[in-house]
């Protein structure tokens, strides 16, 4: 597979950024130095980066409450992301969203939803808008294996196929829907077979292999646009993090975690670097740079001002009498 050097640099940079970032989040979660719920995506880095490396900067995506990796891979500002998690005024959502809702519309993010399967219908709408207006932006909705039982996913999938809407349904099959194992909750033999009910094209890939994710997504975008049809992608990986930070993870057997570590997406991408003429020195340099950048982002966030309490009244509506918000 041909990937130019700039893109390769970007891919490795983003992979390491997400991993270092989430490791730091786990640390501050333990120290209880930030308010609120935290959901980390350790083990999802290759899916976040592989899909985003095939999309253009201004393509539309939706994410979920496990969104840090998607936001970083969609080129949202690291300092703004961090500041948002700390609830500070310079956060990406001005402190009104928090960790579960990291999203920047200017970077093509339609939203990061706390409600499972809320994203697919919204992304369908953006894709419909592109179709009606003759736009060229691609649309992709990220969701987990837990979302595939939810009606909102099925309703969006059915309409997307019926209306010939080019878009990607990207399912991260990470083995767990909250605390429930996928091999228990799945009704079909393979998760991607869900798409058959809608006569939708589907592909499956190794979610720990960033280059495989990239290739499958790149091909799917071309096919989806050429055939004017939605495509369902399933990427398998393992959720090393708990459902949330603080989860005891007792439902995840230790042997299973040890086994999964053999396929850790970061480990795998380092092993594959030589195939792309990437030297271990180059890898080390990127890691050093990225770790500095992550540390700077946390240093920045910690020192940012809190929002004014009354800022809670801003931007509820475009236009509404302020005195009626009391």
């Amino acid at each position, binding site marked *: 597979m041909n990937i130019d050097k700039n893109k390769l640099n970007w891919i490795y940079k983003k992979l390491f950024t997400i991993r270092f970032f989430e490791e730091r989040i786990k640390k501050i979660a333990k120290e209880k130095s930030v308010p609120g719920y935290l959901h980390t995506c350790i083990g999802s880095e290759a899916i976040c980066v592989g899909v985003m490396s095939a999309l253009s900067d201004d393509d539309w995506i939706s994410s979920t409450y496990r969104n840090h990796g998607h936001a970083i891979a969609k080129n949202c500002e690291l300092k703004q992301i961090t500041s948002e998690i700390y609830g500070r005024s310079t956060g990406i959502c001005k402190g*009104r969203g928090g960790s579960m809702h990291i999203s*920047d*519309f200017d970077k093509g993010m339609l939203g990061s939803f*706390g409600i499972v399967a809320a994203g697919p219908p919204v992304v369908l*709408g953006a894709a419909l808008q*592109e179709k009606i207006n003759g736009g060229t932006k691609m649309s992709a909705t990220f969701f987990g294996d837990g979302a595939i039982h939810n009606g909102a996913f099925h*309703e969006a999938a059915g309409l997307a196929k019926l209306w010939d809407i080019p878009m990607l349904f990207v399912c991260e099959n990470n083995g767990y829907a909250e605390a429930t194992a996928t091999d228990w909750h799945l009704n079909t033999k393979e998760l991607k077979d869900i798409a058959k009910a809608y006569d939708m094209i589907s592909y499956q890939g190794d979610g720990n292999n960033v280059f495989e994710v990239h290739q499958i997504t790149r091909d799917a975008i071309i096919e989806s646009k050429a055939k004017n049809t939605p495509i369902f992608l399933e990427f398998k990986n393992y959720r090393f993090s708990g459902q949330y930070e603080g989860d005891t993870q007792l439902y995840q057997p230790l042997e299973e975690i040890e086994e999964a570590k053999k396929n850790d997406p970061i480990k795998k991408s380092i092993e594959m670097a030589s195939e792309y003429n990437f030297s271990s020195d180059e890898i080390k340099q990127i890691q050093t740079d990225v770790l500095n950048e992550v540390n700077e982002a946390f240093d920045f966030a910690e020192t940012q001002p809190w929002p004014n309490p009354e800022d809670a009244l801003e*931007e509820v509506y475009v236009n509404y009498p302020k005195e009626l918000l009391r």
Partner: protein
Amino acid sequence: MRELTVKEAINEALFESFENDENVILMGEDIAGGKGRENYPGTQDSWGGPFGVTQGLLTKFGPERVRDTTITEAGFFGAAVGAAMTGLRPIVELMYVDFAGVCFDQLMNQAAKMRYMFGGKQSVPMVVRTVVGAGFRAGSEHSQTLYSLYAHIPGLKVVAPYDAFDAKGLLLSAIKDDDPVIFMEHKRLYMTKCDVPEDMKAIPLGKGRIRRPGKDVTIIAIQRMNLFAEEAAQKISEENIDCEIIDPRTYSPLDEELIFESVRKTGRVIVIDESNPKCSLASEITSLISEKCFNDLKTAVIKITAPHTPIPFSPPMEDFYIPSTKKIIEAIKKVHNA
């Protein structure tokens, strides 16, 4: 001047909005009707929704902008949110407000909160048109109003017009508005008529209307209740009691000042709401009056609402459920004589 029914007025507002802004699209179940059947095509555009309100739009504007959907309210409500954020002005039809349960997440958590939660960079200019109201012998799941369910949620605007004039003017505004608007149409008012000028202008959201000026008693009437309020006010005028009727028209934002001005003048107030009583618009308006106009009140506010029951089917029971002119007249006498 010409007369239009509420149904015709809404249809006209839709046509004009489609003509004036190519970003306006419509999605809903059987908003055209007759889709499918390749070999033996049925009559296209035969339904126009269950009440015929959207009839003709498909024929005039085509299937790209007038989209019959599958029975998937969560799917097409969510699609409206995404389409609205990225540049269209979608109108979606929720066939009956009672169906809200299956798609409420997309309204309550997505449409309403996206602008706020994601830092104010985007807006969601969509309109939900929906049908409300009892009196159609349609049973418990096709007759509710549920006004307060929507008015409760920050980020949503709520409009419920009474006559054809307001229906047209307010719908024109709702479609131009940059926030998500719930536009509630009462099924028992669709065929009622009033004057609507050819060059009808948009009526700003958040402005109420004095439907009948008076000095003795203030009646605040919600949507169809204006009909009974007018009947009651007319009858009681024979006893020299002069009622003022306020139709707020919009419930979020609510024209509180218009209500307070009238209350300050009369000091005697009745609020009529066809909804269930608990946590209703009637209780909200009554509470606002007691907070802001306590010293102006000459007697306690009387609320006239439906009872705290589902809507019964059988005509005698449904008629008992809906507030009546008789109950309003009794209440007027009570507040007037207190």
